[in-house]
C-alpha cells in the first residue's frame, strides 16, 4: 500500500477528529521497562498513585498489570515501591 503523501495531509497541524490521543501509543518512547514481582508486591498502590501516565492497571483494589502501551518507562513506580517489587529492565533485555 502506498504511504500517505502531502496531498492527503491537512494543513497547519490540524487534527479533525477529537479524542484521538488515545491512538498515540506513547509506550513507544520507553527505553526501560518496569517488571513487577507478584511475590513481593503487597498491592499498597503507591505506584498506582504516583504513575504519571496512569499505566498501573488496578482491578478491585489489586494490581493486575502494567499498561505497556502508555508506560514511558520513567521508573517512578520502581523508585517509590516500599517493597522493591518493581525492577527496571533495559528494553530488549530478557
Amino acid at each position: 500500500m502506498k504511504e500517505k503523501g502531502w496531498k492527503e495531509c491537512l494543513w497547519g497541524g490540524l487534527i479533525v477528529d477529537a479524542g484521538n490521543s488515545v491512538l498515540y501509543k506513547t509506550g513507544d518512547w520507553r527505553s526501560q521497562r518496569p517488571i513487577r514481582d507478584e511475590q513481593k508486591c503487597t498491592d499498597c498502590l503507591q505506584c498506582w498513585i504516583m504513575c504519571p501516565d496512569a499505566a498501573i492497571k488496578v482491578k478491585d483494589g489489586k494490581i493486575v498489570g502494567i499498561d505497556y502501551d502508555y508506560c514511558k518507562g520513567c521508573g517512578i513506580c520502581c523508585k517509590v515501591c516500599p517493597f522493591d517489587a518493581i525492577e527496571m529492565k533495559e528494553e530488549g533485555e530478557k
Partner: protein
Amino acid sequence: MSTVKVITGNHAASFGARDSRAEVIAAYPITPQTQIVELLSEFCADGTLKAKFIKVESEHSAMAACIGASAAGVRAYTATSAHGLALMHEMLHWAANGRHPVVMANVNRAMGPPWSIWTDQNDSLAQRDTGWLQFYCESNQEVYDTTMIAFKACEQVLLPGMLVLDAFILSHTYEPVEMPDQELIDEFLPPFDPPYKMDLDDARAFGALTTPEWYMELRYLIQEAHEKALVTVREVEKEFGETFGRYYGTLELYRCDDAEEVILIAGSTASTAKDAVDIMRKGGRKIGLARIKLFRPFPNEEIRDIASRVNKMIVIDRNVSFGNQGIFFNEIKASLYSAKNRPPVYGFVAGLGGRDMKIDDITGIVEQADTCDIEEILWWGVKL
C-alpha cells in the same frame, strides 16, 4: 452609489477594513499607523461596523488575538508598523503556518535606532520568510482596494496577507478615494467560511505537534499554497478590475511596450518614478517602469518576461540587507539566473529613513546606471 472621500492612506485602510466587513479587530497603536485602528475603533463604537474591537497590551497579543479569531472562522484585521511588526514576528509565523488568513496593514517605517518614524521597507521585508503574502501599494485608492483583494485572495488559499503603505507619503497624505456600493463589495467578498473552525461544539485540534515524519509535508503544503496564491491574486485582481474598474496586477508595467530599459521599484515612490519616466521619455530615452505590487509570492515569471524584452534593469530599493545589497535587487537577480535573456541589472539603495525621493533622484539614478560599475553596491545620495 459609490462615494468619493478625500482621506489619508491610513483612513483608506480603515475604510477598506470596514467595507470588507472585518469581524474582529485587535490592535495596539504605533506611529504612523495609529489612525487606522483609531478610526476602526470609532466605527466599532458607533455601530457602523459590527465588529469586536479587542484592545491588547502589545502587537504580539494583537496578532495572537487575530489568529484566534481567524481560527474560529471570523474575518480578522489589524494594523501595525516597524517595531510593532517586529514584535509580532513569532505570531506572523504562527498565522501563516496555521493557515489563518488574517489581513494586516503595515505602514512602512524605518527601524531604529536611530529613532525614526519615516518610511522605508526594511520592517516588512524583514518578514519575508514568515509565509505572509505582501502587497505594496502606490496610492490611497490602492490601499483601500487592496484590503478587499487581500481578504478575498488570502481566504481562498488560507494564508495571511500584509498590505504595505509608505509612512506619511501615503499614511498621512490626503487623496480622493472612491468607495463602491456596499452591495457590490459584499458580492465580491462573501463572508469568510473556512473548512474547519475552532468550535466548542465540534472540537478540533489546531497546530498540533507534528513529528519529523510529517513536518515537511505540511511545509510543502504552504509552498503549494503560495504558488496557487500567485494565480489566485491575479484572478481576484482581474475580478476586482471587472467589477470596480480598477486593475493593478502583480507586477504593474508602465510604458514598457517599447522600452529598452526598465526601472523596478515598489511602493509610493513608483508614482514619482512614473513622472520621471515621462520626463526621460520626452528626452528620448526608451525607458519604462515595472512596479512590484506583490512581493510574496514573488512574480518570477513576469520579472523574467520583462527582462527578456529590455537591455538593462535598474532596481531602486528603499531598503537594504546589510552585508549584501538591496533586497528587491537580490530577489530580482535570483529570479533571472535561470532566464535565457538576462540583461545587466543595476541596484541602488535610496530613500532610507524617509529621505525624499524626488523626480531628480530617479533621473539621477538612471543616469548614474549609464556609467557605473555593475559590481558596485550603490547608495544613492549618501553625503560625502
